[in-house]
């Protein structure tokens, strides 16, 4: 039954893609508000993976349960990073921001390399090898849970920006920083909060990803680029776009890895990135500036 | 009297909003024409259409009988139109002299010759003593002068000046007016200027075109325009209120 087979692969890819999308959501939130491109995003994600690995190793916590702890820790780190360093760069030229964050990325990834070594670390949960039958498809239990959790977190984030007072203030600040300052919003505080939220979100994505992939420092630059690819495809600053882009990339990676060679699957993503950059740089759901 | 620049039926919309609508006027060779009007009247958009920053939706711009439609800003400059920016755009990290050298290199291959030309232009704009300073360290009046110097160094036949007198003190306005009058009288430079400083408009211009809401509402000598009731209502009246 080849059609079912493809369907199965696509569904698996879609679930992984939801986690990718969640990671990209964090990048998009930071860019959309602070207007700084977080080149250390994948590094934060891998930090989230290691957080889940450690909590599973020492406390035997399921990554789904440790995700809130990881989120809290990364929130604080992101908040401090914005307050301490990045905030000074908000008004500086773009290339200075990139270089700053590339430096931070390099510190993070090599710090992790020194702490954890180059070898892969995995998390084992009781349902690691379980599968669930849904119609004609046979899906991994870990993937289903990770995908579902990604949707829950993304929904919570949308709700936060849509309904909460703080979320609305952040949105106002993204639309018109000057106006927000005029009406008395604490811009620097909101920026730090936003960077913290972005870091927390990508940390959760990392914790969920630890269910699917073994943690290695080398994954970090790949995830940074992957997040970029996704937000550019979805539209830089567009939250639904990030989730949509994540699912697209997840499915296309899974199919490309199966139809071509697994090692060529990211080539496909870069191809898509180049085409989108050239033809629709504002992304699928982005607004033209 | 031949027209150096002819603008006819020029229109531009931004997201459905009419910024410039069916504007026509012509600048006679060797004269100074002032483009005035309240904020948002479409003056700078008209400038940008002439300078090739974006294409017009309708209408044509002709310089000495040559259509300029579809040319990029650098080609417009090569055709003989120099411009300044309302929000000054100095090359901040370069020195004042280097800024003007870049302008002179528009028509000059040799850097040494361009430098000599740049010095002459700086002399003229009373910026010679600032030549070696980084442009970003200049005061606003000097930055405005630098804008004019850089545009002038491209040796234009028509100079577009976008509010070069705004923000200057009265004495500085007088000095700049003197420089512009001198360029016009002695070298026959044709000038199209957007200006809010009415005193300078009255002193300098041979002809005034008034825009309001993207449309031309008056065109004539300064005295005629000032007496025009429509102008008084839309612009001068609003200004005095």
């Amino acid at each position: 039954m080849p059609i079912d087979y493809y369907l199965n692969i696509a569904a698996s890819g879609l679930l992984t893609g939801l986690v990718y999308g969640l990671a990209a959501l964090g990048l998009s939130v930071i860019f959309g508000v602070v207007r700084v491109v977080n080149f250390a995003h994948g590094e934060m994600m891998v930090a989230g993976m290691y957080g889940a690995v450690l909590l599973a190793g020492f406390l035997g916590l399921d990554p789904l349960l440790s995700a809130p702890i990881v989120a809290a820790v990364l929130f604080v780190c992101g908040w401090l990073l914005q307050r301490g360093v990045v905030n000074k760069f908000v008004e500086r030229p773009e290339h200075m921001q990139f270089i700053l964050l590339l430096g931070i990325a390099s510190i993070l990834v090599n710090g992790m390399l020194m702490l954890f070594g180059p070898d892969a670390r995995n998390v084992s949960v009781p349902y690691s090898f379980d599968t669930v039958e849904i119609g004609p498809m046979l899906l991994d239990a870990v993937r289903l849970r990770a995908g579902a959790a990604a949707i829950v977190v993304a929904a919570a984030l949308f709700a936060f920006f849509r309904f909460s007072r703080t979320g609305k203030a952040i949105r106002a600040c993204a639309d018109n920083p000057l106006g927000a300052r005029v009406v008395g919003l604490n811009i620097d505080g909101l920026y730090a909060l936003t960077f913290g939220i972005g870091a927390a979100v990508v940390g959760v994505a990392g914790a969920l990803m630890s269910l699917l992939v073994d943690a290695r420092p080398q994954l970090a630059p790949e995830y940074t680029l992957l997040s970029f690819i996704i937000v550019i495809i979805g539209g830089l600053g567009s939250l639904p776009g990030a989730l949509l882009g994540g699912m697209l990339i997840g499915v296309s990676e899974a199919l490309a890895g199966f139809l071509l060679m697994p090692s060529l699957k990211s080539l496909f993503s870069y191809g898509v990135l180049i085409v989108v950059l050239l033809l629709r740089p504002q992304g699928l759901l982005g607004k033209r500036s | 009297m031949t027209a150096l620049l002819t603008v006819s039926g020029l229109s531009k919309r931004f997201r459905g909003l009419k910024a410039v609508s069916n504007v026509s006027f012509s600048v006679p060779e060797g004269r100074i024409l002032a483009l005035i009007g309240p904020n948002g009247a479409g003056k700078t958009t008209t400038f940008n259409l002439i300078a090739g920053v974006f294409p017009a939706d309708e209408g044509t711009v002709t310089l000495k009988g040559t259509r300029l439609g579809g040319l990029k800003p650098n080609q417009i400059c090569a055709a003989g139109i120099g411009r300044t920016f309302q929000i000054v755009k100095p090359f901040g990290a370069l020195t004042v002299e280097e800024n003007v050298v870049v302008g002179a290199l528009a028509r000059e291959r040799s850097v040494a010759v361009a430098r000599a030309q740049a010095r002459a232009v700086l002399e003229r704009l009373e910026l010679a003593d600032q030549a070696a300073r980084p442009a970003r360290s200049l005061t606003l009046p000097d930055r405005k002068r630098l804008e004019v110097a850089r545009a002038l160094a491209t040796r234009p036949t028509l100079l577009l000046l976008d509010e070069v007198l705004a923000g200057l003190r009265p004495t500085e306005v007088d000095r700049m007016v003197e420089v512009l009058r001198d360029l016009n009288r002695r070298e026959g430079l044709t000038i199209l200027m957007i200006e809010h400083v009415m005193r300078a408009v009255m002193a300098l211009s041979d002809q005034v075109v008034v825009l309001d809401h993207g449309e031309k509402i008056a065109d004539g000598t300064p005295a005629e325009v000032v007496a025009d009731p429509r102008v008084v209502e839309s612009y001068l009246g609003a200004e005095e209120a």
Partner: protein
Amino acid sequence: MTGRGIVLLVLAGLLLAVAPLVGDRYVVSVLTTVLWFAYVGQAWNVMMGFSGLLSLGHALYVGLGAYVSAALFVHYGIGPWAGMLLAMLVSVAVGTFIGFLGFRFGVKGVHFSLLTIAFAEVARIGFDHIQWLGGSGGLFLPVEAGVSDPLNLRGSPTLFYYVILALVLGALALSRVLLHSRLGYQWLAVREDPEAAEAVGVDLFRARMTAVAVSSALTALGGVFQAFYFNNLFPEQVFSMGRSIEIILPAIVGGIGTLIGPILGAFILTPLGEGLTFLIEAGGLDLPGLKQLFYGVALVTIVVFRPEGVWPWLARRLRLVRQPGEEA
């Protein structure tokens, strides 16, 4: 420059010229690495420093230069002096192709930088699968001990040292000439304000394309050197994102857009990194990543505290260059 600056520069040049006569093998090898980074840093500086185009994928041009020249040598016995012409040609062709796409489609700022990364990554993954070039297993150049054949760039470390020293001096001279030319002024204008540059007659597309062409050609030569110096090439190393970052470091630390900056930056960074490795190894520790971690710290420190780089600051403090306002 002031007389003092020129004296210091000449002195540094003389010191470098006699270094292999007084230093041992280790010193020569470290200096070769320093000069290599100084060279590629200068090449990158043409794009970012002179014309404001942030390429974060310069490993692509190093890799293309390295693979083209190595393939010609391994498969056809064509030496690097001839091979470098094709290496530069291929690199320029790819560079201008990326530039053409980017500039024609109006890809700006962060999007342009991502475009350069994307192409470097495509090359990395693609070269992993080109078996003719060794694939992911690597491409190796034949090494014979004791052979001295400068025509094929085979020989002692001293030969390589002088080759890379010549490249650095050549790139310095070329950068200086370009910066004082009409094209150089136009590049700087485009870097400072593209819109204003265009208004004074600069053809943005042409200025940017020439910057990409010069930069990619120079960088490709760095790749040729690398191939024949190390005698092995792996796509995972040569084209990696990490390598692209290492290339931009010297210029950032030394001073983006300055002539001496990339050279000074390499002389600061590489010895510090080497010293750190040396200390760690002497202590009997094995800490992979420490050198890169240190580079990361250096990068952050520089952009936070000395964003214009070390050279402009040093030159001011030591009065090596004339300050604006001083008589020329």
